[in-house]
């Protein structure tokens, strides 16, 4: 029994370390791109975009010719619970990239510039994870 406990602990540690290593790779990629001046505070129509600026800049660092849907989500209070959102959107071949901003309750979804973003479809995908999408703003990159 103790052996199984130790194995579980070591396996968990390894999984955490793997994820951490992956994060560092993402961070390195971001270092090669400067994205000052991105519209993460105010949109063209004057509406305020409530996202974490650093997280938004990191998200769009490698994107070009794209549009980002910033989706407001209710009930997204836990990283582990939000994993399903990422997994659901990743199955959509039109999605280039996805991220979750827990502090602001936002999901960032990047599509090709010409793609027609459908909020109803996004709402369904969010609901498939048990949360509610309440609004969406789209930013061109």
């Amino acid at each position, binding site marked *: *029994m103790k052996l*199984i*406990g130790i194995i*579980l*602990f070591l*396996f*968990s540690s390894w*999984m*955490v370390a793997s*994820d*951490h290593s992956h*994060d560092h790779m993402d961070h390195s990629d971001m270092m090669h791109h400067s994205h000052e001046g991105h519209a993460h505070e105010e949109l063209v129509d004057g509406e305020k975009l409530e996202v*974490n600026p650093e*997280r938004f800049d990191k998200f769009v660092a490698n994107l070009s010719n794209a549009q980002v849907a910033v989706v407001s989500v*209710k*009930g997204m*209070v*836990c*990283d*582990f*619970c*939000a*994993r*399903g*959102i990422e*997994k*659901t959107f990743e199955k959509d071949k039109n999605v280039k990239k996805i*991220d*979750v*901003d*827990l*502090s602001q*309750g936002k999901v960032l979804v990047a599509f090709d510039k010409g793609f027609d973003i459908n909020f109803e479809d996004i709402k369904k995908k969010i*609901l*498939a*994870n*048990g*949360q*509610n999408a309440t609004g969406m703003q789209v930013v061109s990159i």
Partner: protein
Amino acid sequence: MGMYRYILFFYIIASINIEARPISYSGGSTLMMFSDNMKDSIYYHFSPTYKYSIGIESVKDNYLNNDYSLLRATYLINRKNTQYSQRNLYINAGLSINDTSNNFYGIHGDWETRRWFVGFGFKKLNNKIIDYDQKHLQLGVAPYLGEYGDLHTWLMIKTKKNSLNDDWYTYPVLKFFKGNVLVEFGYNDETEWDAHFMYRF
């Protein structure tokens, strides 16, 4: 207290943590492993929708030297999402594949923000030896608010009581999760260490 009651009592104490995260996202599945001085358990469930999950749990009882499997189901009967919180209420049930007199049903719920967690549960268990029920309360606080992808930590305290013994047993629980992995460790003077591992596919 007879030997069977003694064993069942500690079995109950050790078996509650596996109720956490009972349903995945639509089309998702989850693997859970639980280990302590009384049993080793592996539980796999699949969620056709975010409303319910079905799964199978394989249990190795180290003290009774007994292996058995349970078919399990969990249904989300109520959820309230707000900007900063989520509240859930679930019902669940399980039935032994080999012996239908070995079964359980229960209800549990939780409310959580990014900082606070409150959970409760009630479960009625039936088998050929003795029928009993159990209840628990759990409180938790996140010492820091991690962002998506960070290592998240919860400091929790859990208290339990069952119909075989009128005492409440309270002990600390540490929970960590990052990415698709969640681990939880608890310690009680009577049951010593237990470990709970979860991976969401």
